[in-house]
């Protein structure tokens, strides 16, 4: 481990910008991935997620900013740290004329990994039976599995997965999710870029949300979601309840058949109402899914890069 390999981050991007011609792909992007845990990298189509990942791996040159992996600058020192990184960018692409096993064996030769490791990772992803088929004949799910197998060849400390659940059936999604969680539980860092939020929501420790090439939110998942929690209140005197709760400092939205209170404390809301002499007919906590929180975040995000009030601690 080098002298710089003592920070808390497996990966850092600072003020990274990238243009393809006149089109900006990344706009002063800041990103930090902790050394352990599953870090979600979320954003709509065309937001710059795959470009960011390609920049991390030295596949594209950025126009400004700095990238560091385990404290080492990328791409200058990428060969020094690449042995600790396993990554697949976007759709998995291998040599279509060769079998899955041969594709991995060629990689294993190049990265000086024993041939026996190939059979082990193929078994891990459930591709042993299909290993002799040409990659060009694989289904999308099989291609995804082979890509995941490739990332595990070196037993990396940082695993970067771009849309790993694309094309997988529910069992495959579950297996991939368990694999990512298992890697994180072993002390590795997993960066997963995905649109399939429902598939990974329950395993994410931290997230970064990107829009138009810049960061719009970053933090622990438990920090981001509760801010979007709502308490639903059905009550016979909605106007009085609205006034009482607002008097207590609650942010309340009046809807046709109920009140929606921003927060995650139904017990406190109930007490404030009863102290005001009001008794709700129904009070329930609604914790929106990551998808709802994410969509709301994207819709309200500022158009350009700006300092974030909330960062990963």
């Amino acid at each position: 481990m080098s002298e710089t390999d003592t920070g808390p981050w497996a990966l850092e991007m600072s003020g990274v910008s990238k243009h393809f011609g006149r089109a900006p792909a990344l706009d002063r992007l800041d990103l930090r991935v902790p050394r352990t845990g599953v870090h979600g990298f979320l954003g709509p189509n065309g937001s710059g997620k795959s470009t960011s990942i390609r920049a991390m791996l030295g596949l594209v040159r950025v126009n400004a900013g700095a990238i560091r992996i385990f404290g080492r600058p990328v791409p200058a020192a990428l060969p020094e740290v690449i042995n600790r990184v396993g990554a697949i960018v976007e759709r998995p692409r291998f040599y279509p004329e060769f079998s899955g096993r041969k594709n991995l064996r060629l990689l294993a030769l190049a990265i000086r990994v024993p041939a026996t490791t190939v059979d082990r990772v193929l078994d891990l992803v459930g591709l042993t039976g299909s290993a002799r088929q040409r990659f060009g004949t694989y289904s999308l799910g099989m291609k995804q599995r082979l890509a995941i197998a490739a990332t595990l060849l070196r037993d990396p400390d940082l695993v970067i997965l771009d849309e790993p659940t694309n094309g997988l059936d529910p069992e495959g999604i579950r297996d991939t999710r368990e694999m990512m969680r298992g890697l994180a539980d072993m002390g590795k860092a997993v960066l997963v870029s995905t649109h399939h939020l429902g598939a990974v929501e329950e395993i994410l420790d931290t997230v970064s949300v990107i829009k138009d090439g810049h960061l719009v939110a970053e933090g622990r998942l438990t920090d981001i979601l509760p801010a979007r929690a709502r308490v639903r209140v059905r009550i016979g005197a909605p106007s009085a309840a609205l006034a009482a709760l607002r008097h207590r400092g609650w942010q309340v939205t009046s809807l046709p058949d109920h009140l929606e209170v921003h927060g995650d404390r139904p017990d406190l809301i109930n007490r404030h109402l009863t102290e005001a002499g009001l008794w709700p007919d129904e009070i329930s906590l609604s914790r929106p899914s990551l998808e709802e929180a994410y969509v709301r975040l994207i819709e309200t995000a500022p158009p350009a890069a700006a300092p974030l009030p909330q960062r990963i601690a």
Partner: protein
Amino acid sequence: MHLFRPELIRLTTRRISWISAAVAGLLLIAINAGTWSTVQHAARTMGRYAGERRYAGVFAFAENAGSMAAVAGLLGATVAYIAAAAYQGSESSSGALGTWLSFVPERARVYAAKLGAVTLAAAAYGTLLVGGSLGSMLILTLSVGGNPAPGRAPLYAVNAVLYIVAGALLGSALGTLLRSTLGALGAAIGLLVLSVVLSILPGMLGLRTPALLTYSLAFLGIGDVVGARSAAAGVVTLLPVAVLVAVAAVVFCRRDVD
């Protein structure tokens, strides 16, 4: 070495590589067989007129080695170009190059390994092709009692192998630059047409200056270039290839990979 081996394996086990190599080999065998048949028949026919079993003066190795080496060189260079262009171009067009570089980011070493694989495979294939053709000619010469003296045959053989290696490197460079097998093949056709036009142009303009194609063929022992020696023909043939390879190397190392 750890980068060179997988590149060599990939190049030599691709279907297009060994199919095109086999086709060229079979063509050359057919040409050799035709030559054998023709020469043997001529030797017997002329021998009858001379009252001998066969006529020993019908075939001299040194006089015919150049032509056979040139045929082997042209066929081999075509095959080498196609195989190398497909090897490089398909890696980009399939996206597999991005996957490869995400595991092995040292682009200069990766490209050097690819060039090494292309050069070694082309040299080995060229040696087999040219050596087999000339060996066949030598046996034919001996069988009809002709003169087996090599003359300039060794030079033609070496030039033919170099020509095949140059063809492979040219295909590799254009496959890298154009990122597509079809693009590289199209470029080859375009280069050929341009070379023919440029070869005709000096004559049409009343100039005696030989063009690139003429030098290139002279390097293979086809035709003659007034005032040009084999070394000059070699430089004119190989230098553009070297320049393109260098340009392709720079582009490979610096280009964004999508």
